[in-house]
């Protein structure tokens, strides 16, 4: 069982919200990963839907590239939609 692959687990906490990454676990296949996730991550009523993805299929950005990737966005406040006056009738923005 030490050879079981690692799976990343995503849980939707309630209908309408996004699935969020909650952690990872080991399982022999996708079906077992869903069951294990149900037991490990939803026992305190955390979710209504589970996605599992085998960790090896996740491509991550390299932490060493953080500067070129993310720094340039920091001084570009004009990309935030904060320069508009929203009418009061528009709620939840």
């Amino acid at each position, binding site marked *: *069982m030490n050879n*079981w692959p690692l799976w990343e687990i995503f849980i939707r906490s309630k209908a309408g919200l996004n699935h969020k990454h909650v952690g990872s*676990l*080991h*399982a*022999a296949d996708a*079906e*077992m990963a869903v*069951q*294990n996730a*149900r*037991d*490990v991550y939803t*026992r305190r009523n955390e979710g209504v839907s589970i996605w599992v993805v085998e960790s090896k299929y996740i491509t991550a950005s390299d932490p060493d590239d953080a500067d070129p990737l993310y720094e340039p966005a920091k001084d570009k406040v004009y990309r935030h939609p904060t320069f508009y006056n929203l009418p009061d009738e528009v709620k939840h923005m």
Partner: protein
Amino acid sequence: MNNHLFNYTLQQADNCLILGQRLGEWCGHGPILEQDIAMTNIALDLIGQSRMLYQYAAEVQGDGKTEDDLAYLRDAWDFKNVLLVEQPNGDFAKTILRQFLFDSFNCYFYEALKDSNDEKLAAIAAKSHKETLYHLKWSADWVLRLGDGTEESHERIQSALNELWPYSAEIIIASDADHDAKTNGYGVNLEEIQSRRDSKIEEVLEEATLTAPEDTFSHSGGKSGTHTEHLGYILADLQFLQRAYPGNEW
């Protein structure tokens, strides 16, 4: 007090408590973290079911008894659980097979008990049935994985099946309480449950490439309080605190 209703409720409560206690022994010892949690989740579900049933049995019994009196202060011969649930955990395969044999009864039992004319039993059944649907899926999946897995896993679960098979039928052999419950509409028809249970077992065993022994000998006695030696040891663990420090609370 309605003696049959009391015994009928206790039979199921005791099944759930003793199997819950057995499964709880795996806590911290599961083959992997995820299955350790799965087993303790199921143990807690079963103990939760037993609590609802003990509370109701205590109410039926009257004279100020509580669920704790029933769980902690009865001796082995008062327990009415079937012998299957008190059998030792053995290896993971044996625990899985014992669980599957119980779940394949328990799930259909609660489904039928939802139609009980006793409102309390019907309500307990409605809540418990959802839990047992998952239990049955979990244990049936593992029977398939082990049976149709490696040579070693197949061998282990086949030998668990050979060992536990003579304990599988007792649960559908009607006791006096079972007869009364069916006749008066507060309990289930065990014959109907048997046919559904048997076909589920047959289907899963076949897919898992396992063979049930042909011998139809069945152990029995649990429902009337005649137990294997194992129950005494379970109760010694389970009841120790209340026996050593009567009435103690925490």
